[in-house]
C-alpha cells in the first residue's frame, strides 16, 4: 500500500541516489513506489535537491506515461493493445473488461479497487492477448479467462 506524503521520507529517497549520474528517473520511480504517485510537493523538493527548475522536473514527470499525479487503484490491470494482441482479438477482450468494471482506459473504479490501463507490448506476444495484473503476467486470454480474471480481481 502506498504511504501518505511525507517530506522527510522523500528526502531520504532523494539522498539514497546521491552521487548517481542522471538520478532523476530512479528517484521518480522510488518516489512513486513509496507514495503511489508523484505527489505535487515532491516536484519542488526534487528540483531543489538536483539543482533543476520545477518546470524541468514537471516536464519529465509529465513526459513519461508511467508517472502518475494521483495513486492508482488497489489493483492495476495493464492490458496490451499493441498489434500482436490485436491480431488475437485483444481489443474485443479489452472492451469486455472495460464494460465489466464500468471504466474507460486509464480509469479507476469509483471505490478505488481497480485501475485499467492500456499498455503497448509486454513482450508476451507469442501468448497473445496478454496483460499484467499487479505486475504478474497473464497470457492467452480468452473470453472465459477474462471472466475468471475479473472474478479474481473481485467486484
Amino acid at each position, binding site marked *: 500500500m502506498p504511504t501518505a506524503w511525507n517530506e522527510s521520507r522523500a528526502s531520504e529517497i532523494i539522498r539514497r541516489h546521491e552521487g548517481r*549520474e542522471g538520478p532523476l528517473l530512479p528517484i521518480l520511480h522510488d518516489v512513486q513506489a513509496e507514495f503511489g504517485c508523484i505527489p505535487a510537493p515532491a516536484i519542488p523538493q526534487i528540483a531543489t535537491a538536483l539543482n533543476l527548475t520545477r518546470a524541468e522536473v514537471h516536464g519529465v514527470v509529465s513526459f513519461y506515461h508511467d508517472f502518475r499525479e494521483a495513486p492508482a487503484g488497489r489493483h492495476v490491470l495493464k492490458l496490451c493493445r499493441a498489434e*500482436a494482441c490485436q491480431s488475437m482479438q485483444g481489443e474485443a477482450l479489452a472492451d469486455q473488461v472495460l464494460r465489466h468494471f464500468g471504466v474507460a482506459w486509464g480509469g479507476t473504479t469509483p471505490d478505488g479497487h481497480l485501475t485499467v490501463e492500456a499498455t503497448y507490448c509486454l513482450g508476451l506476444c507469442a*501468448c497473445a492477448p496478454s496483460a499484467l495484473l499487479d505486475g504478474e503476467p497473464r*497470457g492467452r486470454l480468452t473470453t472465459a479467462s477474462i471472466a475468471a480474471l475479473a472474478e479474481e480481481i473481485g467486484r
Partner: protein
Amino acid sequence: MSALRIFVPCDAAARAVGADRVAATIRDEAARHGVEVEIVRTGSRGLFWLEPMVEIATPTGRIAFGCVTPNDVPGLFAGYSRFAASHPLCVGRPEEIPFLKRQTRITFARCGIVDPLSLDDYRAHDGLRGLERARSLGPAGTVAEVTTSGLRGRGGAGFPTGIKWKTVADAPADRKYIVCNADEGDSGTYADRMLLEGDPFVLIEGMIIAGLAVGAGKGYVYIRSEYPDAIRTFSKAVAVAEAAGLLGAAAGFEIEVRVGAGAYVCGEETSLLESLEGKRGQVRAKPPLPAHKGLFGQPTVINNLISLATVPAILADGAEAYAALGMGRSRGTMPIQLAGNVKHGGLFEAAFGLTLGEIVDEIGGGTASGRPVRAVQVGGPLGAYFPRALFDTAFDYEAFAALDGLIGHGGVVVFDDTVDMARQARFALEFCAIESCGKCTPCRIGSTRGTETMDKIIRGERVTDNLALITDLCQTLKFGSLCALGGFTPYPVMSAIKHFPEDFDRPRLVAAAE
C-alpha cells in the same frame, strides 16, 4: 538415488500461462509420492505454443513435456516410471523438435537450458570463453574481430557494430560508456526479454567485452518498465556477477540497471540517452553521433541488447564462423520472433536469408485461428505490412528496405483474414501520436491529423481525396522527422494502402455493412 532434475521455465511468457502453478504442483506431488526432485527454473526455449514446457533430465539427455497444466502433474507422477516418455504430453527430446532442430542457436544457445542465475552453469555451457579470448586479443584485436564478423545492429538500424566500436575506441576521453538498449518496445518482439530472463550473463559478458574493446568502465542497461520479470532477474544477475568479481570497480567495469518509464520513443538511441540523463526522452539531432558525444557528452557505445549478447559467441568461436552464416551484407543469425495469430509462436534463431513464406507458413505453421494468413507485419509498429504475394522476400536488411519495409528487431506479427487493414493503418498513426516525443512537427501534429484523416476514410468520407492527403502526409513524416518514429510510421500506413487497397474502398464497404 540422486534427485530427479526437473526444469520449469520462469520466463514471463511461461509464467503468463501457468508455469509457476505447474512448478508448485510438481513440488507438492513429488512430496506426496516421496520422490526427491530438484526443480530448476530456467528461461524459455522459445517454443511458446508448448509453454509451460517441462523438461526432465535423463541419463541420455532431457525429455520435454508440452502444454503442462497443474492438472496434468499427478498423471506425470503416476505409474511405474515418473515422467514416462509414453505420456501423451511428451514431445520427446527438445533438440529434436523440428522448430528447434531447424534453428542455428548462437545468441540463444543457452536460453531455456541453464539456470539463469548460476554462474557455474553459465561457465559449464561455454560462458566467459569470449571474454577470455577478448582479453588475449586486446582492445584493437577485439574490435577487429567484431568488425570481421559482420555483426550489424540488431535493433533495426543495422549499423555495423565493429565500426561503431572503433569510433568510440578512437575517441579520446577520460570517460566512456557502454549503453545497452533493452527498451524493446516493438510489438511482436521479445528476444531481449527472453535473454534478460533466461541468460543474463551473456549480456553482462558482452558488455564487459565492449568496455574492454573501447576503453569504457561503466555500462548502463536501460530496460523498459513493462518487463518487471526481466528487471528482477537481470538485477540479480548483476549482483551475482559483482559477488564473483566479474563486475565492479575492482574488475574495471560496472553495470547499472536503469528502468524506463513507459515511453516507446526511448528505444530510439538518442532519446534513450536523454532519458538516462534524467530528461524528457526527446530525440537529439545527429551529428554529433553518440559515439563522439553520447551519454553525458562522452563517447558512448549504444547497442541493442541482441548485438551485445552476440559478441561473446563471436569472440569465443571466431568472427569467420559467424560471418560464414547469412546472405549478402546481413551476416550471422537473427532471432526471429513469431507472434500474434500464429500457430507455432516462438523465437526462431536462424541465419539471414529465410523467406517470409518459410518463416510464416512452414516454421510458424500458419495462423493460430486456423484461418488463412492475410497480412504479416515485420519489424514492429514501424514495420510494413506484407501480403502473401510478397512471401518470397528474404529475411535480410536490404531485401526488406528495398520493399519500403524493415526487419527491425526481428518481430513478425501474423494476422488472419479477419484483419481490417484500414484500422491497422489508423492504429499506426494513432500509436505515433501517443508515443511522439513532440520534437518534430510532422510527427507531433501529423500523427494526430493522420489519425483523424484515417477516421474519415474509415467512415467513407471523400476517400480518394483523403487517401491522397494521407500519402502526402506520409511523405512529410518520412522526410521531415528526426528519428524512426515519425520517419517510419509511413511504412505500416503506406504498405497497408498499397497492398490491401480493397480495405480502403470504404464507400462500398460502408454500403455493404448497411
